[in-house]
């Protein structure tokens, strides 16, 4: 008995002294890093996914994108808001308790001027504290989809934010640097150990997490190392340097599949890729044309008809994409078989439309494109340059990293740009409010259709599902006719994963380590 106890103690001591023996370390990579660790500063996929390991929201989604309780255990709709029962006994990484007051603070922070989550958070007009573990999120009238809009609004500790002077979110556009950019304090399954932007981010398992034992995941440590070069990224997977590549280049998928010890998982992604055309400004910044050709719907139609979506699918995407005529994919309420088909490919008609609009010889324009964000983003842009050249439009391509590309869109300083949009709420309101509403913070097209703006507001409070769906449909039909964007395709996700780890793939391209099992 005594001996047994001694043995247990010494084994425990050994484990503590030599943690590497027992640790499951998951090393993974993708092309770009999270832009900031501030949970309310940048509404961008990889940033949300990275912060989602450290911070948590009231409601989350599992790998099948079903709503799941996270920091709230249950919720209930009312006529003027939703009541959430908070999980009890939850602690932040620094030991502080998670209470109703943190929820109040987090929504205030997400609604701050510098926040990039305003379009989601502003649905919550105020937060009423009922008791320490019950809150009521007040809405402007009934809101049928509020839980869907909360999945990426992360909860942050009020005390920690006040102590570290980060009550307001980082102003990313102004390149502000705050304590919360490189440090974090959430309630999530992992805590930030070290952070070197664009080099290495290390997260360690939070032993005090509320969900400990409730999820299959057995990862102890996550090492994330962004690798910009696609070939280097695949080489790292092939050589065993990393266990998981989120975004292997599509042309290398076959090679990864045929390698021993490696596999590929694919799923249709909730993300559409498209070009935006600025029809709002009076004189384009980068064009030799007088005025703004994009003001003319014929020019916008010509651009849509000039892009050969099928060729991009076959040659650039290796078949891993679905050409489309919408900027939101199937799976999101609002995508319909009537509106989804692409505008088609007809360069002759496109050229005729340009001539009708007064540009028989075309014009020149700059295309702003990210080169480390979407599947083959720069190559899609290069293909578009060649296709538009055939109708006489001379496109100068400027492909730059996303950290410089996105501010151009948000500051509305681009004439013609590539953007991709995922929809965490699985509801069109998210697309309308960011990309189509005249005031949308990611709408650099200058497009503002009064009816679409009206519908964007109306569907927030419309609880009759049939009526609401009809309104959404109506708005998309207007958009389809107005053509503020050039939709290209919906992405298909392909993850390269080593056989010794089981990671469920999710259509929102987010890596969920709480479900990842290492063998």
């Amino acid at each position, binding site marked *: 008995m005594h001996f047994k106890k001694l043995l247990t103690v010494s084994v425990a001591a050994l484990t503590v002294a030599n943690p590497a023996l027992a640790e499951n370390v998951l090393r993974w990579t993708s092309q770009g890093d999270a832009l900031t660790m501030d949970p309310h500063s940048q509404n961008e996929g990889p940033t949300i996914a990275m912060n989602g390991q450290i911070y948590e929201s009231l409601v989350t989604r599992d790998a099948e994108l079903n709503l799941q309780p996270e920091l709230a255990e249950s919720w209930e709709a009312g006529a003027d808001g939703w009541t959430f029962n908070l999980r009890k006994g939850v602690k932040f990484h620094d030991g502080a308790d998670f209470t109703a007051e943190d929820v109040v603070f987090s929504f205030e922070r997400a609604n701050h001027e510098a926040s990039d989550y305003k379009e989601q958070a502003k649905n919550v007009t105020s937060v009423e504290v009922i008791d320490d573990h019950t809150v009521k999120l007040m809405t402007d009238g009934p809101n049928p989809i509020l839980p869907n809009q909360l999945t990426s609004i992360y909860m942050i500790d009020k005390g920690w934010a006040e102590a570290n002077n980060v009550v307001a979110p980082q102003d990313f556009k102004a390149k502000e640097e705050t304590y919360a950019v490189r440090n974090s304090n959430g309630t999530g399954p992992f805590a930030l150990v070290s952070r070197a932007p664009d080099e290495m981010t290390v997260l360690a398992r939070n032993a005090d997490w509320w969900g400990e034992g409730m999820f299959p995941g057995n990862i102890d440590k996550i090492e994330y190392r962004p690798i910009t070069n696609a070939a280097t990224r*695949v080489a790292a997977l092939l050589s065993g340097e990393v266990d998981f590549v989120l975004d292997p280049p599509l*042309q*290398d998928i076959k090679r990864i599949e045929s390698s021993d010890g490696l596999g590929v998982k694919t799923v249709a992604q909730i993300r559409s890729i498209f070009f935006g055309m600025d029809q709002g400004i009076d004189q384009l910044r980068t064009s030799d044309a007088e005025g703004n050709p994009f003001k003319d719907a014929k020019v916008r139609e010509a651009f849509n008809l000039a892009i*050969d979506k099928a*060729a991009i699918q076959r*040659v650039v995407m290796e078949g891993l994409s679905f050409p489309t005529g919408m900027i939101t994919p199937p799976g999101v309420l609002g995508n319909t078989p009537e509106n989804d088909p692409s505008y088609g490919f007809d360069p002759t008609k496109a050229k005729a439309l340009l001539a009708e609009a007064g540009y028989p010889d075309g014009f020149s324009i700059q295309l702003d494109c990210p080169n480390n964000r979407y599947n083959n983003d720069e190559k899609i842009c290069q293909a578009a340059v*060649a296709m538009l050249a*055939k109708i006489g439009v001379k496109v*100068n391509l400027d492909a730059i990293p996303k950290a410089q590309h996105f501010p151009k869109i948000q500051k509305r300083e681009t004439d013609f740009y590539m953007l991709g949009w995922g929809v965490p709420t699985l509801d069109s309101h998210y697309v309308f409010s960011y990309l189509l509403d005249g005031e949308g913070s990611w709408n650099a097209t200058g497009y503002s259709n009064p009816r679409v703006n009206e519908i964007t507001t109306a569907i927030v409070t419309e609880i009759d599902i049939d009526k609401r769906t009809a309104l959404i449909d109506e708005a998309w039909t207007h958009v389809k006719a107005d053509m503020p964007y050039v939709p290209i395709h919906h992405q298909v996700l392909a993850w390269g994963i080593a056989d010794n780890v089981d990671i469920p793939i999710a259509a929102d391209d987010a890596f969920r380590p709480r479900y990842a099992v290492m063998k």
Partner: protein
Amino acid sequence: MQQDHPMTRWERFKDNDIVWSFLHSPGAIVAAAITSIAILACLFAPLIAPFDPFDPSQISLWDGKLPPAWIEGGQPQYLLGTDNQGRDMLSTILYGGRLSILVGLAAVCLGMVLGVTLGVISGYVGGVTDAVIMRIADVQLTIPGILLAILINGIGRAFLPLELRQEFAIYVVIFAIGLTDWPQFARVARGATMVEANKEYVQAARIIGLPGWRIMLRHILPNTLRPVLVIATIGLALAIIAEATLSFLGQGIPPTTPSLGTLIRVGNEYLFSGLWWITFFPAIALVVLVFAVNLLGDWMRDALNPKLR
């Protein structure tokens, strides 16, 4: 044949020691042949190449990633296959090689003009001027050339407004490589100048009161050109490699008007998927070109150096 028969021009030309050495060095002949064929092919690329890869309206994405003509799936009009954008590889290599050679030549000329000027002044004037110029050259030689080129290139790009960046990328690259090259030329020119400066004809020129710049330009400069020419030939090969390195690192010529280095970089992304021809043929073209220029430079060094003969 009579002894007193006047030599024909060809015979006199053949009798020239450099030509004699050239005609008796098979390596030099082969190198010169390859170099001139490569340079001619590249300079006349618009006439030879089946397509114009710089004209996006000639590209069809549907023809992308086709293998060379002799492999199954290849098409006869694309002899060496096509790249990921559907551009004919043979045409892109010819056009890309032209860019590489032009950038190399221009960079060497820039480095040569700068280096020889400073070197001759340094060697002729001496004293503080010499010390300052040579110390600057020494400091620059301690920094690896390619790093310096990346630095100059980065600064050059940062100063250009966005819309001009692509248009001027090629000049920035030339400038970057040329500026890293000059110390080699300066050192050689300075050495040669110091030897010449003590010879009688220079002293005579000085005594009759010719101004310094005139002596340097008309009397010393022509006599320093032999060693400079050798350096310039080898420098051309190095400049072509420097351009390819910059472009391979994504710092050089943009992919819309690719040079050989840009082509190798783009092709590199497709190596794992088995599309070897996108990177292989430009790489072979680069190797052959640089090797030929280097051989030529080696032979020149031997032929122009009286001590090695």
